[in-house]
């Protein structure tokens, strides 16, 4: 129960961070990605600020035995750099660069949606379902077996 409460508060803080930093506005994302003309470095500052705060805690988590509220850490266990990682990231980048929405800001903006955002989120969830329920092993190969913690 405590875990669920923490997750809720973390979601609230995450959304406020995205909103205050302007990341819920796709024009700011595209202003960062279009490197010609008037470049907007905001996205870099947001990621830099987030990593600056998170870095120490993440490093602690890699060494700690268990989370403070008990249970176990659920960290990605794959260490292999494979085709799935690169191809998946490129596909994501193409969609993200076309519209300026990645998953977090798209969900936060649902509180004041536009028709195109609704189309985008519906398609995004379909894309997630297509991957989760589709049989893609023959196309993209099987995931490498997970061994050890990723560093």
């Amino acid at each position: 129960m405590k875990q669920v409460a923490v997750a809720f508060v973390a979601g609230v803080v995450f959304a406020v961070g995205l909103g205050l930093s302007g990341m819920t506005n796709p024009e700011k994302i595209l202003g960062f990605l279009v490197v010609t003309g008037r470049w907007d470095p905001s996205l870099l500052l947001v990621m830099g600020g987030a990593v600056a705060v998170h870095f120490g805690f993440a490093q602690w988590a890699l060494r700690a035995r268990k989370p403070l509220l008990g249970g176990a850490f659920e960290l990605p266990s794959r260490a292999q750099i494979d085709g799935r990682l690169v191809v998946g990231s490129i596909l994501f980048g193409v969609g993200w660069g076309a519209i300026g929405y990645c998953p977090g800001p798209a969900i936060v903006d649902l509180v004041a949606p536009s028709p195109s955002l609704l189309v985008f989120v519906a398609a995004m969830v379909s894309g997630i379902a297509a991957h989760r329920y589709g049989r893609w092993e023959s196309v993209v190969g099987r995931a490498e077996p997970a061994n050890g913690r990723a560093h």
Partner: protein
Amino acid sequence: MAGSFTWALAGGGLIGLSASSLLVLTGRVAGISGIVGGLVEPKQGAIAWRAAFLVGLLAGGAALSRLVPGAVTARASGLPPVAVALAGLLVGFGTQLGGGCTSGHGVCGLSRLSKRSFVAVLSFMSAAALTTFVTHHVVGWRP
């Protein structure tokens, strides 16, 4: 009001604080595409915290839009609807295949100094920059 760069840093700091509290207290990674993916394909015992995080995202967005009007407002995209849908499919499918998005790889993975996340961030950043270049300068779309 402070400049937008100050807000970008401060907002980023809040995102880092959110990811840190989730990780340190509960052991979970604040990767949005993974959280949504875990709800699209629900597994027992892994639903409640993900749902709570998503409800938190919406509650935070709603609260902020009350306090700072205009801070959270979806814009109409200049792209034709079919292109919007294609972008959504690519973002959904790509983040699942690549195992993360801007938050999971970009914030959490880089903070763990994960090699996979460095490769992912380089891949999606360059693909995104190339795509915006093409849509803006070649096709002439202004999303």
